[in-house]
């Protein structure tokens, strides 16, 4: 292995290592993206703070909070907010609920995904407890009101007067049962 061969070998190893690192970087973009979203509130990702110390409300400002319920394509549940809009003061803890009903004849499990607009407001909307934190299961013909407790941070930028909080309901029943191989169609929920 003459000098040129060794030089080539070293360079090629460095380049291959660089390629592998960039492959890893491609996957590292996923957590990096999450952190980036938390900071800038891109795409309405919301911080789930958990219990927050109750501070007195700043009554000088009224923020209009709109609620929206969306069914993802194959989701047959009835799903809507009990109230369309609510006027809230920043710093005030507020309770709200979404109504959900499973009209089908089989047990189903759903996952709600939140999103906020305008994106700049996402980091100032703290959800103390929310039905989107965990999966919601409903038996046939069962319905329930799913609670949501939220606070709007007082540091909300002055120019934001309306915040729209939307929940998209996804059916994750087939995903859960992918564990057991489904032999024929009828075993699946009569969806």
């Amino acid at each position: 292995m003459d000098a040129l061969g060794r030089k080539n070998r070293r360079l090629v190893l460095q380049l291959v290592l660089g390629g592998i690192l960039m492959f890893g970087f491609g996957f590292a973009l996923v957590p990096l993206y999450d952190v980036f979203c938390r900071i800038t509130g891109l795409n309405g990702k919301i911080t789930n703070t958990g219990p927050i110390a109750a501070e007195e409300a700043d009554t000088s400002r009224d923020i209009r909070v709109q609620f929206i319920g969306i069914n993802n394509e194959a989701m047959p549940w009835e799903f809507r907010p009990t109230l369309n809009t609510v006027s809230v003061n920043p710093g005030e803890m507020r309770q709200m609920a979404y109504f959900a009903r499973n009209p089908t004849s089989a047990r189903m499990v759903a996952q709600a995904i939140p999103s906020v607009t305008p994106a700049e407001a996402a980091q100032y909307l703290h959800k103390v407890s929310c039905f989107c934190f965990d999966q919601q299961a409903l038996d046939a013909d069962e319905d329930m009101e799913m609670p949501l407790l939220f606070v709007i941070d007082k540091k909300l930028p002055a120019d934001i007067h309306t915040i729209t909080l939307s929940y998209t309901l996804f059916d994750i029943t087939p995903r859960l049962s992918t564990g057991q191989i489904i032999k024929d169609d009828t075993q699946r929920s009569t969806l």
Partner: protein
Amino acid sequence: MIKRVWLLPWIGLFLSLPAKAAWEVNITPGATAISREVYDLHMIIFWICVAIGVVVFGVMFWSIFHHRKSRGAEARNFHENTAVEILWTLIPFVILIAMAIPATATLIKMYDNTDSDIDIQVTGYQWKWRYQYLGQDIDFFSSLSTPREQINNEAAKGENYLLEVDNPLVLPVGQKVRFLFTAADVIHSWWVPDLAVKKDAIPGFINESWAIPEEPGIYRGQCTELCGRDHGFMPIVVEVKSQADFDLWLADTRNAAQAQAAAASEEWTLEQLMERGEQVYNTSCAACHQATGQGIPGAFPALVGSPMVTTDIDAHINIVLHGKAGTAMQAFGAQLNAVDLAAVITYERNAWGNDTGDSVSPQRITELQQ
């Protein structure tokens, strides 16, 4: 003079092109202050590019003509002059900065959060739009109303071919309308050039935009993000009406919704269901199952003589109401009212030789949906 002769055929060609044909070449100034501002931005940057182009290509073509070997040009020996290079880099920088200022101003105006008079949730479905007027419980689907025959060239194309819908989105003039975009399946994009609004509708997320239409009229747009088979067949029609007409329309739509709810409790004969069913079938089902009910082999099942449609009624209702996960068959229960569902199921059970003679009543549908 002889050298110019070969230009004549080209000029002739361009002059002869039919004048009446629609030769639209530019974006529309549109019907809102923002869309006019975008139009001005577009024209400024366009003319800047034309100016730079004329200068650069001018020098180039001049040099191509004058410094040709066949004209005895001798190549000079300069190949570096950083002063000139710095100059021709600084000038575009300055022009771009000049462009960035108005562009930033317009962009900041576009992200204005002031309160809106009317909020509309726009949800993209695979191949139709759904409009919900928040707080006024008006909720309807808007799908392409161009007949299939026109698309398959069996009939002459109408004036608004592929840009016409059955239920347009109606807005009041002069009011700030705030759009909330989301999607139920794949990414779509809602674009109306006259309002200069284009925002992606992403499943699981909500985006917002706004517009204040200043003149009543009909503004058309299309979905601009590839969303599958009929991406080119889900147009957008926005009808801006005066405040009075808009209030009238609001009242009519609410009454129509109640009337439909009431109609669900009346008795419908087989003929009435069949006639209504055919209409609903051609709007919502013919796209996949074809008007003849033959479907597309390997892609969409045929309905003619299929057991699903001729035997067990409940299974038939169930698949129309809840769709079939993992296939393109959507849950139409959320998209059509009880009367339309009953009508289309009855039509499918009795059309194209399937005459099972069953007729499904709207009451049966509402009962199943309870």
